[in-house]
Every structure is written in C-alpha cells, then in structure tokens.
C-alpha cells in the first residue's frame, strides 16, 4: 500500500518531480508526455464513489472547474438521489418522498459526468483500481470516496438480523425506510408511544433526531393527540440547537414530547419493541425507532483510509486527501471531522468543493489552495413550516493544520419562525441544484 510521507507534501507533484528528474539524461525521456502539467491544463481520470451531497457535488465541480478536461466517473447504486435533509417532513407526513427525490440526469447531460449504476466493492490502492460489485474495474488517477455511513449493528444486541431490522427501523438513510417509518406511525393507534433512540455522538446530522421528534409530535398533535414522543438520548444533553428544541417541545408540543438524557441503548427486543438500558428501566414502545451507532461506509475500509477509532477517515482539510493513502480523498459523513464541524449534507457539499478545487489543481501540476474555507448552514423544521438554524464558518488554521470555526462568527436562530421556514425550503431547492443540476 502506498503511504504518504507527510500530510503537507503533495504526492502528485512529488511523483512528477521524480519523473522529470529521471528524464534529465535524455531528450527522448523529456519528450514523453508527463501527466498533468500546468501548461497543458488539467487531465486525468477521477472516480467518485457515492452520489450523495459530497460525491455528486465533487463530480459536478471537477467537470466544471476543469472545463471538462478531467474524466469523471461517478459510481452510485441508486437510480436517484433522495435527500436526508428534509426527510423528517416525510416522517411527519407534511411532504412525500418525491419532494426529496432528484434524478441524476443533469450530471451526465450538462456536465459530462459518466455515471455507473453499481456498487464499489473494493479498492486496490496500489494498482489504483476500483472494483465494482457487477464485475467491472475502473482505473483512477485520483479516487474520491463519499460513501456516507454504515450502521454498527453489532453495537445493538437484538437488532443484527433482518427480521428485527424490518420491525425496528432507523430511517437514517432517506428512502424506503423513511416511508416505512411513516407507515408505522400511521398504523399506530392514538394513545401509543413513539420512542426514538439516539446514539452517542458523533453521528450523521446532529440535530436530525430532535427535528424528527418535532415532526412526529406535529403529526400526533393533529391526528393522534393522546400519543407520546419519547426521546431516549445516548448523550447527556440535546447535541444541537438544544435551547431552541427544548422551547419547541415545551411550547408547541407540551404534553407530547418527553426527553430523557443518558440513555445509551444496551439492546432491543424486536418482538415486543422494547429498548433495554444498562441503568434505566426498559422502554416498550408502539413504534420503536433506533438510530444505530455509525461509521464510514465499508468501501473506505477496503481502501485502507479508516484511521480514527476504526470508524472515520482522517483527511488533510486542504485537499480532503486521506492522511495515509495517496490519491484517495474522502468526503462527507465518513470523515473524522475537524473541531466544531458537523456531519451534515451542507458540509459534505462544502468538503466536495474544497476537494474538487484541490483535485483540479493537483491534476494540473499545481498545489492545492493552502487556505480552504467551509461554511455550514443547517435548518431544522420544528413544524411543517417553522424552522430554526445553526450556521458556522470554518477557516484553515496554519498552526493547528486543521479548519476551525471563526471566533465570533456563526450562531443560532433567536427563535423559530415561518420566515426561516421559507429559507429552509429555499436552502433545499438551491443545494439540490448546486449538487445535482
């Protein structure tokens, strides 16, 4: 396996330097085409694995910023993109799945991205080849992994088998599970209990569980007012927008939402929909929704880029290249985040742009931008139309060699509002287009 000597060097440049230096002896050697010099513009093959907020954005922006000169292949098993952000509205019943669904057609038609509908099964980082589940092989000069999350089923005793997983849903990847959870809530009689288990942070979308509690409560308040939403949080407190969510539960959903901290799930009994805890009493629910602990998608393991706690991938934030494996970049929820950086769709889109700029530069024989900047804007829908936000800006810190929130910047809503609700829907429209159109 090719390993990088240091995080600060740029491997492509190093390789070119050696190629050129080795060619000094003869004119013939120098006349050989050297890949990607600044005078000839960018060129090369990029393979992107995963067509979510990170991967689709990276594919589009590399094509845009290389003026179509870099060959980009996107490997994605799903026929269409289904957004996790806003998917709690489908759980609450104010929107349906089609609202979240965007086709991939614009990526090939407008940007010349080649899309292969398959699953990346393995990566050979020495040969620089992605092997597909369907049997094909894709060679790359640079590989971008945006694999999202896998669930750590072994951490939830009782939930490892398919029957249990069909009964106790996660709905933490938007799609069939989102609709199935909605169906369970519709089938639940009034007076029932919906219980939501939240894993210990970090997990995908820090405010997502609390938004889900709001959306289910919004539904109960109208359709099943004797029912309860019970939040069983593995963390010591609400992990995002805490005061704003607590106010919504107290004001909008008084008597419906109950929050319990420090409830690390010890296991489930699928047959009775019971959640078990080491210290606290068991909780039996009519609808039990478990968000399991998570780690980087499996393909990251195959590429050897899972470096943090056997779960996440450490990257150089100037390029999102793995700190251990050359020419492999990682985006989105799969990375080991910088301080104060959430695992969000907005952030994955921002990762992708820093990475795209770096990949185009590197394949042009240039160093990556030494001062990357990323933003995050995250809206949570508290009702079907009112929203709250958290936002932040992250700038490169040369001393600490990471990106850090700018002191005094960013912040939260002062209160939930319908105006912010309209901005939340505008956010969705715009980021879906920025990622996919």
């Amino acid at each position, binding site marked *: 396996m090719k390993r990088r000597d240091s995080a600060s060097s740029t491997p492509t440049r190093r390789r070119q330097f050696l190629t050129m230096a080795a060619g000094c002896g003869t*004119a013939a050697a*120098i006349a050989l085409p050297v890949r990607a010099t*600044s005078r000839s513009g960018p060129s090369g093959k990029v393979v992107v694995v995963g067509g979510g907020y990170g991967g689709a954005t990276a594919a589009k922006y590399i094509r845009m910023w290389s003026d179509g000169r870099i060959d980009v292949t996107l490997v994605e098993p799903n026929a269409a993109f289904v957004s996790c952000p806003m998917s709690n509205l489908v759980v609450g019943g104010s929107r349906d799945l089609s609202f979240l669904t965007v086709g991939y057609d614009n990526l090939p038609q407008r940007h010349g991205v080649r899309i292969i509908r398959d699953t990346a099964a393995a990566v050979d980082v020495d040969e620089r080849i992605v092997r597909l589940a369907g049997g094909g092989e894709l060679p790359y000069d640079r590989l971008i992994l945006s694999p999202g999350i896998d669930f750590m089923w072994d951490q939830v005793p009782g939930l490892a088998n398919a029957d249990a997983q069909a009964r106790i849903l996660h709905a933490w990847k938007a799609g069939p599970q989102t609709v199935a959870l909605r169906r369970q809530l519709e089938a639940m009689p009034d007076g029932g209990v919906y219980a939501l288990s939240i894993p210990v942070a970090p997990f995908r979308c820090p405010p997502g569980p609390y938004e889900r509690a709001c959306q289910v409560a919004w539904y109960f308040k109208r359709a099943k007012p004797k029912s309860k939403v019970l939040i069983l949080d593995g963390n010591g407190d609400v992990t995002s927008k805490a005061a704003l969510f607590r106010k919504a539960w107290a004001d909008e959903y008084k008597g419906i939402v109950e929050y319990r901290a420090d409830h690390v799930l010890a296991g489930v009994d699928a047959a009775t929909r019971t959640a078990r805890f080491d210290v606290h009493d068991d909780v039996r629910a009519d609808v039990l929704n478990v968000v399991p602990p998570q780690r980087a998608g499996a393909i990251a393991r195959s590429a050897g880029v899972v470096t943090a706690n056997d779960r996440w991938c450490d990257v150089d934030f100037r390029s999102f290249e793995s700190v251990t494996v050359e020419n492999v970049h990682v985006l989105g929820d799969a990375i080991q985040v910088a301080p104060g950086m959430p695992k969000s769709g907005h952030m994955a889109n921002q990762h992708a742009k820093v990475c795209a*700029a770096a990949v185009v530069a590197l394949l042009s024989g240039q160093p990556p931008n030494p001062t990357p900047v990323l*933003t995050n804007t995250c809206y949570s829908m508290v009702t079907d139309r009112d929203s709250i936000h958290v936002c932040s800006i*992250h700038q490169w810190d040369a001393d600490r060699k990471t990106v850090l929130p700018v002191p005094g910047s960013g912040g939260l809503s002062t209160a939930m509002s319908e105006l912010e609700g309209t901005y939340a829907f505008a956010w969705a429209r*715009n980021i879906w287009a*920025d990622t996919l159109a």
Partner: protein
Amino acid sequence: MRLFPAIAAALLALAAPAAAAQAPDANLARNLAATCTNCHGTNGVSQGGTESLAGMPKDALVQKMLEFKSGTRPATLMHQLAKGYSDEQITLIAGWFAAQKAPR
C-alpha cells in the same frame, strides 16, 4: 548534441511548480465564492428564495456584506456568516460574483 537544450527544458519544467507555489492562487476568489453557492446557486444563480449574486455590482455586494458583518443590516443568519470572512475575502467574493453573468 541536443543535451543542453534538453537540460534547459528540464530545469524550466522543474522551476514551474515552484514558481506557482509562490504566486497567489488564481482560483482563490472562485473557491471562496463557492462557499456561498449552496444557498445562492451555482455560480451565484439562485433557484429562488435567496438572492442571486451573479452579476451583482461588486461595491453593492461588499457594502451589503460589511453591513451584515457590522450588524447594521438585519438578517436571520447572514450577519452570523458574514463575520466569518475577512474584509479581503469579502472583496474577492464580490469581485468574482460581479464578473458572472446575471440570470435573466
């Protein structure tokens, strides 16, 4: 004997990346502007619900951002985001969007 020109060419090729590393990044403004486009649309052309920044006069956008930054222009979140950029970065961002074609 063509060895001498060959060495000169090799030295030039070696010097090029080093020189590039010293120069300011030609794409810095583009990269900074891309931090706005999740919400304001690719290249600043909004899909609606947010302001299109493409083609907005540079001075107007700089002024707006500085007003957000100082808190004199009311906002739900732009006053929080504007504080994350230096004045130099705001100038680069505004210059880049001003050079983009405004949506029809």
